[in-house]
């Protein structure tokens, strides 16, 4: 087991390194440069050259990369060109926002997805099965920005039930402890603020969770169907077990591995910050940070953010891998 974890960890490091090289080159290949974004119409060739020198952008690419890598290895992602602030500090400030939204969206996606999947599998070819699978198909194929706007128009404006965006209403303010607003408001015993934070979470979670939910529902259904036709299910039934026990104890447990994989991958993806959802709901997470950094061609910020996200995604999938090799000892990734 130790050997396995070590091997996977080295794998993660290699992936992050590869990502760092790719993003370093990619952002520099994109047209436009930070000096021009900053100087705008003031840009005379002299001003631009001075700014580039100041940021070390006049050095050869390979030198720039190793200078950056040396600092990054010491945990120093450099200073944002746009805000003149430490990139790492800004990322750490924003990460809890993304984390809260991802956890909420994934909880919703998993509960609804797994339930719908089980019922569809048990009542195969029933009306519910067809309906939920059509909805799931719709969910996987729907563009998220469209869904987000529709949700805002229905629940935010027509029904006037939920806010259109942001994390908290303007009348509340929370002293951040964990930066997870739901938790912080409870820690301070501020229930109105808690309810308000919860309200702000619903629509973005729905928008963000729909695709993972649909995905989880489809995987659960097929995995359950697979398991339900196994001999041990027939054995369980023939020894007179109740249907409930058969499904929950025998079938679901064995069907769990692919579901876990699916949910884990989706969750890792969400943690990287959902660019579209965060933008539309003005959610100040990693996604909006990356958008801002890319549009300003803020090289240190883009590099830092992408590496940060790559690390998180890799870590989450590592944890999922370890977790299900634990759930099912037969599985070991080679």
């Amino acid at each position, binding site marked *: 087991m130790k050997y396995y974890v070590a091997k996977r960890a080295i794998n993660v490091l290699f992936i992050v390194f590869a990502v760092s090289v790719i993003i370093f080159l990619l952002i520099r290949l994109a047209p436009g440069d930070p000096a021009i974004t900053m100087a705008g119409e003031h840009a005379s060739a002299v001003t631009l050259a001075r700014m580039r020198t100041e940021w070390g952008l006049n050095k050869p690419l390979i030198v720039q990369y190793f200078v950056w890598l040396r600092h990054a290895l010491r945990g120093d992602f450099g200073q944002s060109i746009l805000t003149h602030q430490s990139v790492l500090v800004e990322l750490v400030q924003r990460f809890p926002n993304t984390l809260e939204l991802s956890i909420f969206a994934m909880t919703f996606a998993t509960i609804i997805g797994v339930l719908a999947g089980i019922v569809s599998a048990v009542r195969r070819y029933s009306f519910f099965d067809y309906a939920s699978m059509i909805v799931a198909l719709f969910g996987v194929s729907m563009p998220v920005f469209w869904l987000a706007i529709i949700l805002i128009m229905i629940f935010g404006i027509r029904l006037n039930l939920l806010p259109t965006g942001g994390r908290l209403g303007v009348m509340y303010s929370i002293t951040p402890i964990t930066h997870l607003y739901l938790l912080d408001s409870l820690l301070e015993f501020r229930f109105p603020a808690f309810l308000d934070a919860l309200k702000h979470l619903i629509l973005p979670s729905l928008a963000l969770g729909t695709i993972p939910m649909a995905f989880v529902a489809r995987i659960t259904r097929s995995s359950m169907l697979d398991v339900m036709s196994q001999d041990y299910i027939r054995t369980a039934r023939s020894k007179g077990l109740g249907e409930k026990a058969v499904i929950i104890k025998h079938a679901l447990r064995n069907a769990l591995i692919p579901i876990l994989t699916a949910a884990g991958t989706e969750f890792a993806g969400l943690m990287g910050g959902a660019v579209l959802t965060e933008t539309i709901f003005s959610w100040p997470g990693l996604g909006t940070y990356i958008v*801002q950094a890319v549009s300003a061609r803020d090289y240190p910020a883009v590099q830092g953010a992408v590496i940060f996200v790559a690390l998180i995604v890799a870590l989450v999938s590592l944890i999922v891998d370890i977790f299900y090799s634990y759930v099912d000892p037969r599985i070991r990734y080679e």
Partner: protein
Amino acid sequence: MKRTLVIALVLVLGVSLLAGCKPVAKQPVTFVFAKGDAVELDPADVTDGESVTVMNNIFEGLVRYKSGSTEVEPCLATSWDTSSDGLVWTFHLRKNVKFQDGTPFNADAVVFSYERQRDTNHPFHQYGKWEYWGWCFSEIAKTEKVDDSTVKITLSQPFAPFLSTMAMFTMDVVSPTNCDKWKDQWFAHPVGTGPFSFVEWVKGDHVTLEKNANYWGTEPKIDTLIFRVIDDPSSRYLALQKGEVQGMEFPNPTDLPKITQDSTLTVLSAPGLNVGYLAMNMGTDTPGFQKPFADVRVRQAINYAINKKDIVSQLYKGTAIPAVNPIPPTLWGYNDTVQDYSYDPAKAKELLKEAGYPNGFKTNLWAMPVSRPYMFDPKAIATAIQADLKQVGIDAEIVTYDWGTYLTKTEAGEQAMCLLGWTADYADPDDFLYVLLDSDAATVGSAGNVAFYRNATVHTLNKEAQMTTDLNKRIDLYKQVQQIVHDDAPWVPLAYATQTLVFAKNVKGFVLYPTGDYHFDTVSFDTSK
């Protein structure tokens, strides 16, 4: 019995109705405005409009723009005098003004605010990049205290537009004690003398300000001013429809028709301090020079050949108005007697024939690779101009480079015609007419004047306007420059981009400034509806 009951009921109802109308103790007014996030809140260390919007309400400078105009009026200085050689400006400061943290406002604060930007040995110089100081204030030699309420600023050369530059956010006065308290984190804890004081900034979410109870000027009408970060323009509009915010900036052009029709909203729109133009290269010493452009008739013909109105109405999607002069009509000194060249292809052909090009000629037209407010979609605009020129026989090939290369090459004059534009930082015709059209700015390799237009009279007038501090005299000089530029036609002025803000109907008192500044101290809104 029944009757008494009815009367009693009516009475109760009546009283409760009255109670509803009576203004119960004044409710604090919270106003929420949707915009992008600030980057920093140190007025001297920012380059972006989103930060400036917030700081406009916290900080003040020695002078400011008159409400809704580009004319300068006293603010933290009550008056000023200039030495006869125009080098020394003495400002007399307003007395009994305090910063929001209680620090008295005086000459020391002014010297601190400016010297930290200029003097590389100043202990606070290390906390900022001070980009704008380098761009706009390099002519300031030093700032000195004369006495507690008098400050002397010495310039290295006489420069009348200096007064306009003093109204820029870069020259806002900051509280020295507060800077000292926060050191390098000061940018997140701003303290000025303005109508609103800073409460909190949750990055990426909102900035909260509250009414400065000790403000020296007119008391603001709203108690709490919140700038909520909503980056997506469509989401801003949704939040405004719902009433979560009472105002927003930069609506999506595609949403504009819907917004204009919405009777619950007010749209404010006016041209900003910018111009988008097509420049024709007249510099015989540049590599891109082509002979036809030396002839004024050819340049005028091109002005007649381009259907400017159609380009602006169809390609800018309602975010600009057609340009006539190099400076926008909202700037003082604008010459409204200049008659724009009409769209007249026949006249254009005639002029070309006179100039000796009856069958037109081959040339190139450079198009910017990036969209700017004054050049909404450069590629589409270039294509439209190309088609218009084709009509009169001129065959223009469209050329484009990445933005950095584009600027470097046009500054070196490698083009025959190019699209470009300018957004001014301070409201002075000098920032257009000198920077973009003077012979001083036409040095090959670093030209701001990419038409390489070198007119000796224009130069003399521009220089004279830089030396004189008499506003009426300056207006007169700049009007003359505009007429000459119009006749010489080194440009086709294309468009002035407008700034658009949308407010809920019950919001009153917001004034658009051509500089794009937002001041919320005059804003009120009726919360009873």
